[in-house]
């Protein structure tokens, strides 16, 4: 490729498997996710990476969501995942945390 600012990107497949426990307030799940690049080239020894490199990864982790009893519509989420196998990717461990608050725009129902 000569003098072009575009890159021919390979397609990819991504899927994940989740299983866990769910109650009224709590959702707990284990996640196994996989990403496969269809095509793309490996990074050669001592070379620079390139956007169209083949990047495969399998990640394992867990996730939760908890609805707070004190304040309605407010819930907390969080999770972690780590890379158990991969090709041309860093062996990353990731954490996430969040707060959900539901903004309800639907017409108020009459209280019972």
């Amino acid at each position, binding site marked *: *490729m*000569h003098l072009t600012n575009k890159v021919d990107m390979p*397609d990819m*497949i991504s899927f*994940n*498997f989740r299983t866990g426990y*769910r*109650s*009224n307030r709590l959702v707990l799940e284990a996640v196994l996710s996989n990403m496969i690049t269809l095509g793309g080239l490996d990074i050669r020894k*001592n070379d620079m990476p390139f956007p169209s490199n083949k990047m495969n990864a399998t990640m394992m982790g867990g996730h939760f969501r908890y609805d707070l009893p004190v304040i309605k519509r407010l819930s907390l989420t969080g999770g972690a995942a780590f890379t158990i196998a991969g090709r041309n990717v860093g062996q990353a461990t990731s954490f996430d945390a969040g707060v959900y608050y539901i903004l309800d725009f639907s017409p108020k129902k009459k209280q019972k």
Partner: protein
Amino acid sequence: MKPLIYAALLLAVFSACNKSVSDRTADLPPLQPANQDLTAGSWKLILLSRPDTFPVATPAATTSPLYIADLNEIKGYQARLTGDQRDKIKYWSAGGVLRWNEIMRDLMAKYNLAPYQNPDGSYPAPNAANPFAYPQFPFSNPPYAARAYAYVSAAQYDALVACWRYKTQYNRPAPYKVDSSIQALAGKSTLPSYPSEGAVLAGVTAELMQLLFPGEVASIQQKLEEQELALIMSGTATRSDVTAGEALGRQVAEAFLARGRADNAGKAGGTPADWANLVTVAQSKNQIPWLSLEGPARPPQLPLFGKVKGFLCDSATIVALRPGPPPSTSSADMKEETLAAYNTIKNPTREQMRIVQFWADGVGTYTPPGHWNAIAAEDFITKNFSEVRWARNLALLNMAEMDAAISCWDIKYYYFNPRPTQLDPRIKTLTGIPNFPSYVSGHSMFSWAAATILGHIIPGRANAYGAMAQEAANSRIYAGIHYEIDCNVGMTVGKNVGNYAVQRATKDGAE
């Protein structure tokens, strides 16, 4: 409330929209030169002493059975051309010099990879005798690349001058002129077809590649066969035009290969004793010697490249091109230069980062000389030069780049000056720190040498080339890997080297 166990499997396939990327030069029309340069057979040669050093036999008459058989081969192809064959004709009809230059740039990028260290911290050296083992041969760093581009371009030029000489002597018309039932699928021209200029290019380039890219002999041979078949199928040349052209090209290449084996490039890596001597000499001048900042420390890159035989400058000229020394490493001036480098790197703007990336031309790229080949080719395409003029202009550019590399490496190792980061470790660079001394900047020299000769070839773009060269030089200051003085002095020496190419250009008979 009953707990609920659930399991879900999610499969998402991202089907792609049409995102195919096409090469900027993929759809070029056939090269239709404004001027065929029919007098090019008398242009000044670079290495050969005469255009007819290598004889080319008188071709068979166009009425002979041999020639009729040649025409029948073309008709046979043209009667059932596949889509793929038409694509190949279209590709090569844009110009052989352009296409081989693009192929060279691709190879240069592919081979521009520094060897990885051994477990004991030493570094393996690429070995031309064993190109498929790790580390691959060559490591096409900027000096290697500059020399390789120059050899191929210079040999293509000499070969085409010889080709033009025989074309005008034998004056054999193109196949489509002899037989009107043959189509001219790559455009028509008034240029005689024997020997075929495309096949001369294929032969000279393929033969040189054996020295420059020994691991690519097979893929290059494939390109040669593809080009030659395209020439025949398109009705541009007959089998006999092609055979004579390839043979001539290969003979000219042999002369350049002989020069290449004796031009000192093979010894440019130096020995451990040479590397230690550089340190001793710098210390004897009370200077802090350059240190490799890689981990583990890597031997300096091609410290004896300054001794390579240039095409435009002899060894005395290379010494004469040497500028005065940089400020002493212990002086207040040097402290000031280093502090300025630190202050530049502290808060880079987005524009500065863009400039650093655009001109970096580091690992896995076609190097700064390759970048200037790309810039030149882009402009030459619009000028409709004949093949021989294309070759001449690229030879001038690439000889200037090679001699700029020789002069620059001579200066770098003569002064052996440390990079800014070595004197002030607070300097965090925006690009990789090159593994050779700082003074003077290679980017500055390559770019100003290129801008000088290109500005002579296309005067209307001289200011634009100058602006590009300045930006390329600045990119190294913004990146924190050069002092300002490296780039300013590099500009002066680079222009001086470029002027040697301009001097040649004014006297080679093409202007």
